[in-house]
């Protein structure tokens, strides 16, 4: 008997290469090779255009859209910026209305059963006392949080979002592989996938009336905030472990979808058992937290004390019923395959129901008969851990040979309750575009993740979800594949049902009065990103101008002295080598690293181009060292990239408070630099000589403006006029000062602050005659220069104080935490 089934449909020419595996269920073809009815409508539509064309266009468009929207996975784990773009197959996985009805009922039932199980485990533990579930499962699980025992969450819900991984067995039924209960990921990617596919296959999506995915998160948000006192402005946040998490993109995406702030642990503070978000405009009470942080990391005070990611005191706020957590703390205890065999008993005991969706056959080895069975049938089973903190991947019993097999058997016997054995499940296969220049489809193993949301109208299952495709055509593992691609899931409309509320309305979330809820930390990093960009520009400009005067010994020596006095190079270092000095904390290399770090902290706010400009800086510098490039050339390129970065940052961002602070950071940095530079220059006895003045203009990138305006050789008077007085020249002190004042005024308005702050030292006012004096000879002129230098030093110091005040007031919400930041 042939093990391959070929498509029998005559019209589908480009299905020619498709081969279904007869030992598995094929999503597309039935046993005779005919396209299944619920796929037919899609293929009929694709058929109207030449197939190969659809394929190519689909792949190209999907790739482009993924790049444009910046969908990534696991990007941040790699500081070198090796982004792994999200992989999406343009062809959706089709699911018929009849079939979906069953999945929907099954998932909703499961969510209800698991919810009740959690309520029992964190409450009376009746199910354990009665022997329905073994005590080993919760008590041995690292996410069973004893400090949360006895807490009934505010609103009474444990599972606000529940997800389950399903796979289809050769018998055509969907089986449960795993439950996701603590902070199910992937729903954001599912929505993003749909947004992309809407552009790739707009007509079929509309014509087939595919069920919509929007509105579920909005409905969830309404539910999370429904108990908030009407007098208060309701506030929810997405709590993320930060940009280094593999699914950070999704966290940022969800925050945007929900219209809530994306917060890290340090953005939140608990005071009097109440959670607050530290924002630019002060502390704001948080009523609900959609967490993407693991259970035991959420509160370093009561849970894992080594977690720097959590919020100290959070559990106290939960205990006091002052905040809703989605999902409740400790829900991760149900994430273990060991539970699968006990769910039917729980459903029967609590609801007198049979589970609609079967689970993959699972033996928890803690029971003696189960262990005996597993030992006798080890070849046919996959052995896995019962608890997530046992760091090992499930293994096939038959793959274990010799001593590895003996070792496994010993482990099973000594600590049986820590192991689970499961039946192999031959996953069903679905068609996937081949890509890479090859037209047609290949059959790949597929699993689906389906989501249930708690809403005010009860629990709703999102019609669709995330289909995941294995990279290998014929995986047998029950575990979810690492890597691989994803697919959109198209659920066809059900004539017997009206759309549930989540689908039809976009959710009537009571939005809080429009206010800027950008977390302080984010804004602080934007501010420092602004400062470091300019700091790098200024240092690079200074080095470039200095290296250019190497041929003129007199100017060279004063320029090098200036570089040292301004801390751009260390005392004993040559400007040429300083460019690559990794060890100097004041060096350009260190500043680029800091810039990179600040940018990575605000990654969600930056455009793709901006992020690319930042990440290329370090690479460029590194490459130039390797290539032994002339420093001059490196600096030219660096300055160009920094200019591009500035352009992106200023033009591509929403002009909110964060953006204003980025700009203020830039201006303030430049103000300080130019003031210190001028002060240093004026203190030298060569201040009015042609060479040093020209060098100064070069450092400030102002020679090209100076020449046409003053039509003269570089002189001190006009130079000071240009760099201090000129309010139109973007390098001048007057320009910076006015721009800072404007931005601070606007910021005060946006944040509704009572008072505005300013640099409390004026830009020196210089009359034309004073400029003449400064240029002059003799002790009076020298004294005037020194006097001006002193005023400029005071100005630079005032700018530093202003920066400190800004960080205390706007960022750390204290009047004392002055060691938090040092410029």
């Amino acid at each position, binding site marked *: 008997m042939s093990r391959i089934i070929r498509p029998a449909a005559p019209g589908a020419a480009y299905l020619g290469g498709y081969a279904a595996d007869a030992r598995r269920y094929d999503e597309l073809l039935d046993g005779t090779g005919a396209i299944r009815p619920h796929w037919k409508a899609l293929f009929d539509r694709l058929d109207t255009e030449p197939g190969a064309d659809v394929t190519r266009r689909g792949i190209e468009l999907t790739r482009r859209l993924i790049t444009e929207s910046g969908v990534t996975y696991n990007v941040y784990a790699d500081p070198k910026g090796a982004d792994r773009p999200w992989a999406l197959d343009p062809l959706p996985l089709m699911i018929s209305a009849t079939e979906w009805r069953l999945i929907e009922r099954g998932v909703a039932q499961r969510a209800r059963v698991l919810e009740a199980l959690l309520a029992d485990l964190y409450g009376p533990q009746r199910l354990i006392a009665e022997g329905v579930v073994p005590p080993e499962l919760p008590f*041995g699980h690292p996410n069973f949080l004893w400090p949360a025992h006895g807490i009934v969450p505010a609103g009474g819900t444990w599972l606000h979002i529940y997800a389950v991984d399903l796979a289809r067995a050769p018998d055509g039924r969907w089986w449960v592989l795993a439950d996701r209960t603590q902070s199910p990921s992937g729903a954001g990617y599912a929505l993003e996938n749909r947004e992309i596919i809407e552009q790739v296959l707009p007509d079929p999506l509309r014509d087939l009336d595919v069920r919509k995915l929007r509105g579920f998160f909005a409905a969830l948000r309404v539910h999370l905030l429904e108990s908030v006192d009407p007098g208060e402005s309701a506030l929810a946040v997405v709590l993320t472990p930060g940009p280094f998490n593999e699914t950070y993109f999704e966290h940022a995406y969800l925050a945007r979808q929900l219209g809530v702030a994306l917060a890290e642990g340090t953005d939140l503070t608990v005071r009097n058992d109440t959670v607050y978000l530290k924002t630019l405009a002060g502390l704001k009470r948080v009523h609900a937290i959609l967490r993407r942080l693991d259970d035991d990391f959420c509160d370093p005070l009561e849970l894992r004390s080594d977690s720097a990611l959590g919020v100290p005191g959070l559990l106290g706020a939960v205990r006091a019923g002052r905040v809703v957590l989605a999902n409740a703390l400790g829900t991760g205890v149900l994430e273990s395959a060991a539970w699968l065999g006990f769910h039917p008993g729980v459903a029967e005991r609590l609801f007198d129901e049979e589970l609609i969706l079967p689970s993959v056959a699972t033996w928890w080895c803690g029971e003696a008969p189960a262990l005996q069975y597993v030992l006798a049938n080890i070849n046919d089973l996959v052995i896995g851990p019962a608890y997530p903190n046992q760091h090992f991947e499930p293994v096939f019993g038959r793959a274990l040979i010799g001593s590895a097999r003996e070792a496994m058997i010993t482990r099973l016997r000594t600590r049986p309750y820590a192991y689970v054995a499961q039946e192999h499940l031959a996953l069903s296969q679905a068609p996937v575009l081949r890509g890479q220049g090859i037209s047609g489809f290949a059959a790949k193993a597929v699993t689906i993740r389906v989501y249930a949301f708690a809403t005010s109208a009860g629990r709703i299952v999102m019609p669709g979800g995330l289909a995941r495709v294995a990279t290998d055509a014929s995986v047998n593992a029950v575990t979810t594949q690492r890597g691989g691609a994803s697919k959109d899931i198209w659920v066809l409309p059900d004539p017997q049902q009206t759309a549930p509320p989540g689908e039809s309305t976009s959710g009537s979330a009571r939005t809080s009065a429009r206010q800027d809820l950008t977390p302080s930390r984010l804004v602080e990093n934007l501010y420092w990103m602004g400062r470091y960009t300019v700091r790098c520009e200024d240092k690079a400009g200074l080095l470039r101008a200095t290296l250019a005067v190497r041929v003129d010994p007199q100017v060279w020596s004063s320029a090098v002295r200036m570089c040292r006095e301004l801390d751009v190079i260390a005392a004993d270092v040559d400007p040429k080598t300083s460019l690559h000095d990794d060890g100097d904390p004041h060096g350009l290399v260190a500043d680029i690293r800091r810039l990179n770090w600040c940018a990575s902290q605000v990654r969600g706010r930056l455009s793709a181009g901006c992020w690319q400009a930042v990440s290329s800086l370090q690479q460029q510098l590194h490459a130039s060292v390797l290539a032994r490039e002339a420093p001059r050339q490196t600096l030219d390129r660096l300055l160009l990239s920094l200019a591009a970065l500035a352009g992106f940052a200023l033009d591509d961002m929403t002009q909110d408070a964060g953006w204003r602070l980025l700009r203020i950071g830039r201006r303030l940095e430049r103000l300080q630099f130019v003031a210190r530079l001028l002060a240093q220059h004026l203190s030298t006895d060569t201040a009015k000589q042609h060479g040093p003045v020209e060098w100064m203009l070069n450092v400030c990138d102002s020679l090209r403006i100076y020449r046409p305006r003053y039509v003269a050789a570089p002189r001190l008077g006009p130079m000071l006029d240009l760099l201090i007085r000129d309010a139109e020249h973007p390098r001048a002190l007057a320009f910076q000062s006015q721009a800072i004042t404007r931005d601070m005024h606007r910021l005060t308005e946006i944040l509704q602050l009572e008072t505005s702050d300013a640099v409390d030292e004026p830009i020196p006012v210089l009359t034309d005659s004073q400029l003449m004096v400064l240029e002059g000879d003799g002790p009076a002129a020298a004294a005037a220069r020194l006097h001006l230098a002193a005023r400029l030093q005071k100005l630079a110091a005032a700018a530093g104080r202003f920066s400190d005040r800004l960080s205390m007031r706007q960022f750390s919400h204290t009047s*004392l935490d002055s060691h938090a930041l040092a410029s």
Partner: protein
Amino acid sequence: MSTRQLYRITHETRYAYAANVVHSHHLLHLVPRPAPNQQCLEHALLISPAPTCRRDEIDAFGNPVTRIELQSPHRDLNVRTDMQIAVHSRPNVPADETHPWERVASSLAYHGHWPARTNLDICRFRHESAYVRVKRAFTDFGAECFVRGKPVLSCASDLMRTLHRELRYAPGATDVSTPLMEVLEKRHGVCQDFAHLMIACLRSRGLAARYVSGYIRSDLSPTAAPEAPLIGGGASHAWVAVYSPPFGWIELDPTNNIWVGIEHVAVAWGRDFGDVSPLRGIILGGGRHKLSVNVTVEALDALN
């Protein structure tokens, strides 16, 4: 032999910070829990500066716990607990009359049904916890103490002796973050490590063991070794309770190689140090800090 001993205990913890602490949360296990053989007569917990919020509650293991929050800037934190407590001597437990260790382990495991509700509480203490991993190495250590059919308390008592013989008491050699595997490899540690290691060995065999935090009097020569004072005075002490049916929880002090008696005062118990640490906290600001802990255990009288 005295049947009741009265103690006055003072436990003072001082943090001196290099910079202002702007905001802090702390969790205190400094109020003694009620226990069958001890009775707290007087108790006071003094905190300076005065906390912005304070809550006195009972934790999931039945221990009194105090949660405090300080919202005003401070450079010092001083927490002092004073208690007068009466400790009664315990009846002698015949170790050889306890159940064979395998039977105890098996009786605590799941068999598809659940015989007695009281076992539910015991089962909390059979598993891995944050400071106590369950590993093969812990089954190997002291394996000779677990002869087939041997009564569980005899095994535990032998294990205590082995541990005391093999491990060197070395103050300062370890801290709370030292992994238990390292303690086992280097064969030294403080009372916490002795207790954790013993618990790990017991749990690795499916037995139930809990971590007891408290104090020990050190002015008196112990019954076991009259020439040396007990170890563990001047600070808080820790030991182990092992579930030994039919007598229930029996406490052993592996640091001193003695059965817990009238010299020990329990404050709290849990799965490990993490559940009952006397004072833990998270501070904002503060910079470097200096910690000083002072415990005095004063025997007031010995009543017959």
